[in-house]
């Protein structure tokens, strides 16, 4: 291998290869492979029981895999005890030591213990960084949940680890605090450039914070991609359903680029093999037209209900010629060049061909 190649295809910072973990008859991780680049923020996203926390615990060395390998900077760490790896970790429960002050908590891993002055300086620096200056002498019970989580983060970063592991770090917090801390976390991660792996079941959180999102289900990885890729081009029906809202329409294959739904024929980029399939379209992708014009993928729909949802307005639409189908559409009233929408009205809508995705029919 030429040196130039090595730089171009720089080896991943953290990689797992075919990682498998079984608990009795239950397979929590089923041959999972994944690579993280240096400085990257990656989210493991999935429903509870999908294996995301199991994967994190394998990487942390808190549990050992049945099969597969984990490498950190090309060093095999699969069987190493946690202390021989190089990471900081933050748990949902914070796990702050209740009998130690904030300063002692943060300095817990700093060595050697006798260099008090140096540790004091480091603790001050970290507390400034997480936005809690002057809290050294407080005890965890005197802090709010958000503040405790900041201390836990400072403690995890104190030894300047190369890898930061976050296990649902924001789940126990109020919505408002959670959003604020999420943005700060992302800013801090970018500033420090520490490779970060975060577990979450909150898709909005994952999409907002991550460079790349790993969607997991049943112990397998469904899709790895940037938030936009995950949202716009879900690789599977599971991903499409788990991330964001979606409309699903039963359809029949007409040819390689069109399907029929009820009495309508819709065009799209590609149709999988098999007679039946399911069409996927995001609510915000449905266009409400100011006036009718005959065009592909355009049809009339009756407005069943209009509900105000802040920036967007949600519509329930009953397309004509598609018995039994109800579409949810989200439109931005200020962008809509027409009179207010009222229930009972019939409006022309378009299901844009480039935004429709067809998935093979699920076999029961």
């Amino acid at each position, binding site marked *: 291998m030429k040196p130039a190649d090595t730089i171009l295809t720089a080896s991943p910072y953290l990689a797992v290869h075919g990682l498998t973990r079984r608990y009795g008859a239950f397979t929590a991780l089923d041959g999972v492979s994944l690579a993280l680049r240096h400085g990257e923020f990656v989210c493991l996203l999935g429903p509870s029981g999908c294996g995301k926390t199991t994967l994190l615990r394998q990487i942390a060395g808190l549990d*050992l895999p049945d099969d597969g390998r984990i490498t950190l900077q090309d060093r095999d760490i699969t069987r190493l005890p946690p*202390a021989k790896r190089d990471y900081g970790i933050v*748990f949902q*429960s914070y796990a702050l030591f209740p009998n130690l002050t904030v300063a002692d908590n943060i300095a*817990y*891993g700093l*060595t050697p213990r006798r260099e008090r002055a140096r540790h004091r300086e480091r603790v001050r620096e970290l507390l400034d960084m997480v936005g809690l200056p002057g809290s050294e002498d407080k005890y965890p019970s005197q802090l709010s949940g958000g503040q405790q989580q900041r201390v836990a983060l400072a*403690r995890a970063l104190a030894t300047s680890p190369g890898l930061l592991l976050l296990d649902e770090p924001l789940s126990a917090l109020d919505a408002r605090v959670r959003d604020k801390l999420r943005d700060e976390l992302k800013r801090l991660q970018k500033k420090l450039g520490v490779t970060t792996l975060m577990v979450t079941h909150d898709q909005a959180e994952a999409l907002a914070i991550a460079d790349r999102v790993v969607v997991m289900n049943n112990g397998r990885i469904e899709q790895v991609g940037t938030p936009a890729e995950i949202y716009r081009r879900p690789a599977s029906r599971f991903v499409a359903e788990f991330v964001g809202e979606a409309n699903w329409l039963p359809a029949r294959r007409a040819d390689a680029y069109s399907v029929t739904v009820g009495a309508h024929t819709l065009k799209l980029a590609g149709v999988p093999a098999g007679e039946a399939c399911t069409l996927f379209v995001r609510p915000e992708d449905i266009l409400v037209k100011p006036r009718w014009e005959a065009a592909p993928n355009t049809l009339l729909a009756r407005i069943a209900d209009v509900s105000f949802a802040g920036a967007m307005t949600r519509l329930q639409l009953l397309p004509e010629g598609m018995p039994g189908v109800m579409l949810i559409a989200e439109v931005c009233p200020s962008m809509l060049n027409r009179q207010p929408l009222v229930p009972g009205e019939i409006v022309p809508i378009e299901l844009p061909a480039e935004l429709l995705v067809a998935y093979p029919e699920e076999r029961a």
Partner: protein
Amino acid sequence: MSSVVRRPLLARLGALGQAADGETRTAQGLVWLWVALLALLLGLPLLAILGRALLQGDGRLGFGHFGEVLDSPGLMQATLNSFVVSLTVTTIVLPLAFGFAWALMRSRVVGRAVFRQIALTPLLAPSLMPAISIVYLFGNQGMLKSWLDGGSIYGFWGIVLGELFYTFPHALLILVTALASADARLFEAARSMGASAWRQFFTITLPGARYGLLSAGLVVFTLVITDFGVPKVVGGNYNVLAVEAYKQVIGQQNFERGAVVGLMLLLPAVLAFVLERRTARRQQAAITARAVQYTPGRDPLRDVAAFGLLSGVSVLLLALLGVGIVASFIGYWPYNLKLTLDHYDFSQIDGGWAVYFNSLKLATATALLGTPLVFLGAYWVEKLKVAGVGRQVLRFFAMLPMAVPGLVLGLGYVFFFNHPANPLNGLYGSLALMVVCTVAHYYTTAHLTAATALKQLDNEFEAVAASLKVPFWVTLRRVTLPICLPALVDVARYFFIAGMTTVSALIFLYSPDSSVSAVAIITIDDTGNTAAAAAMATMVVLTSALVSVLFSLVEAWMARRRR
């Protein structure tokens, strides 16, 4: 298919061995060290009983000794007696303790906390204390002898009365816990449907406590069938198994027969233990997280009835404790009622006051040795993630003493440590071995206290510490121990009081130099000096009570400091 499963397992084992660093090896070593210690303290002595019972005269294994026991009519009668006494006590103590627990938890009687303390005082006394009081009340010169209408208290009813006192607090503690988990929503629903108070009691209260009742019944039955103190003092000619085991081993030096009787006592205890653990698990599942705590409403009639029950039982318990104490200060009952401290002279007793100081030494040493042993053992079991098999064995050993009556454990210690081939047999008869035996005897309750405290800690403490490259022993010292200090104080108090009051195992282990108060009460009583026995028992009760109060003060101080 099987090879797919087996390969990773082997890979795991092999790789673990390779990657084990100093910390992991230390942890593994500690787990196995504790396994070895508990095997020495518990496993081997119990195996020794089995060996003694099964080893025939010709050196082969067999059931010959069992046959001898079955053939001896005296022993079979003792077995029958033991069952009858245990059943009788269980039948009487259950409704009493349940009523008492109900009155404590479901009424608004003033001073419930005081009644509760009174009901728990028997825990501070050796089981011989009520027996001595019974002798003073109903014995041949008893105050209330006339009540018996010419009958004698020595025998069946004496044992029953003494055991009632001894087992009452044990049953009460379980039933109070069972009743504490009442869900107010059920009662509200019943009231809204017009159910009467009686109907509510029989359809909600009683079924809700059924596991507690079963559990309490099993505990009481086991305590009675294995207790030795009460029948020894007031049993008279009514022979029971526990006393029989003592007579066979100490009196007749028939170790084989003693071992068989020991195993016969172990059987109901183990059965009760298994059943009890099962029901305890069900009881926990019955409480849902969303239950609303029940608080009793106003009901004067109910409160009067509850007060009657609470005070009635309390007076009885205090009488059985107090008569012995008072009698110890009286010149010569019933002829010379002058108050005196003469009985506290102990000069006519082998060892004199040294016996009491031995007790203090034993209790202190038990607390000092038992607390760290139990706490660290519980920590290895709950928090270390290595040596899975070792931790399983350790957990088994920790629960085992609950199923082993003290008498059986004492027998095991005789057979194991008194064996000429045992290099440790120099310990036999020493206070040190008695301390070790007491720790082993009371290990389970102490372990459960420590384990409960440890389970309440965040499981991620160790994970965080490991990620910070801090070894577990530093986290144990800096975080876990300080947080668990109140539980440690609890365990120490428990061991101290156990050391002060226990008789059943030590009766086989003491030598003239290492006799302790609780054991001396029996030997003094045997010589007919009941007043001195009462004085010695009083010393035990007062010491336990004093130390208990001291520990409570320490706990209160620690709780205040933590604010």
